[in-house]
């Protein structure tokens, strides 16, 4: 069975949502308190959404100093699959596991809504078979505006690190489809190796028909499939 660690920082709130969603794809999960994180023996790690440390200083900034982040970096460097959603994405950026930063939404308000994102790369454990798929997912964030300096942005685009972009119903990148002012409509990224993925939307909130959608389930199913075929070394 696939074993997935779900990290919990003070103020994290999507950990139980992920636990439930991952149970739907048959994964075995464990929620780990941030001071007690040992990822050896796990096949993947999730950094869920929430307001770690109340989002004080910057979203994800204080979590970066936690021992969990050190262990997460080790796990990622060893090739372990890591998914950060919402506050988890912010933490991955703050920790330097993904490039750029997430600042206050251009409208200054928290936004809870459904968006569409287009997947640009199937080469990560979370997006197998999803290239060019348009996924409908909920967002819930106040600091989801992705920014990067021009050089970094150029590198991100050139190396194909953009994993998801906000798009309209036809799958086209438009200003109206962008909920938070993110540069180039960037909704999610991967690292160079492809094992670390971050996105602002919440796949765990759309894993059952009764919640209005199942596109998030496709990412979690991808993980379970990918882990099953991963080289033993990494696992």
């Amino acid at each position: 069975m696939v074993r997935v660690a779900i990290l919990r920082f003070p103020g994290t709130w999507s950990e139980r949502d992920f636990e439930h969603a991952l149970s739907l794809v048959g994964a075995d999960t464990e929620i780990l308190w941030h001071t007690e994180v040992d990822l050896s023996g796990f096949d993947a790690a999730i950094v869920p959404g929430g307001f770690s440390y109340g989002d004080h200083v910057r979203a994800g900034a204080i979590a970066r100093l936690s021992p969990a982040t050190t262990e997460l970096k080790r796990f990622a460097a060893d090739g372990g699959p890591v998914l950060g959603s919402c506050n988890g994405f912010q933490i991955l950026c703050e920790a330097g596991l993904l490039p750029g930063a997430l600042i206050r939404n251009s409208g200054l308000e928290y936004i809870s809504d459904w968006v569409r994102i287009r997947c640009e790369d199937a080469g990560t454990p979370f997006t197998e078979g999803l290239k060019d798929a348009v996924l409908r997912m909920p967002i819930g964030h106040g600091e989801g505006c992705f920014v990067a300096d021009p050089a970094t942005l150029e590198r991100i685009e050139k190396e194909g690190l953009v994993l998801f972009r906000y798009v309209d119903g036809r799958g086209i990148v438009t200003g109206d489809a962008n909920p938070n002012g993110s540069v180039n409509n960037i909704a999610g990224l991967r690292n160079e190796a492809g094992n670390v993925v971050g996105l602002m939307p919440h796949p765990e909130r759309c894993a059952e028909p009764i919640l209005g959608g199942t596109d998030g389930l496709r990412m979690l199913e991808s993980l379970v499939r990918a882990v099953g075929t991963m080289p033993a070394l990494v696992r």
Partner: protein
Amino acid sequence: MRFVATIHVRPKAEVRDPQGEAILGALGSLGLGVVAVRTGKEIVVTFEADDDAAARTAADVMGRELLANPVIEDFRVELATA
């Protein structure tokens, strides 16, 4: 010795400042001839250090490790003894 460091954090010039933009819009309506607005944070930290040099180093660490994100922000330290 006890020191007070005021650490000023500002978004880099090339990074968007949505809050500053909003304030610019709002101040515009007050008719005060405002042409530009940038927003920043200041964090006033009271702390113990052996001497001035140690205090400055400590304040720099605070700025670098936590208070400012080098990807988008710059910071500046003002140091005083308490």
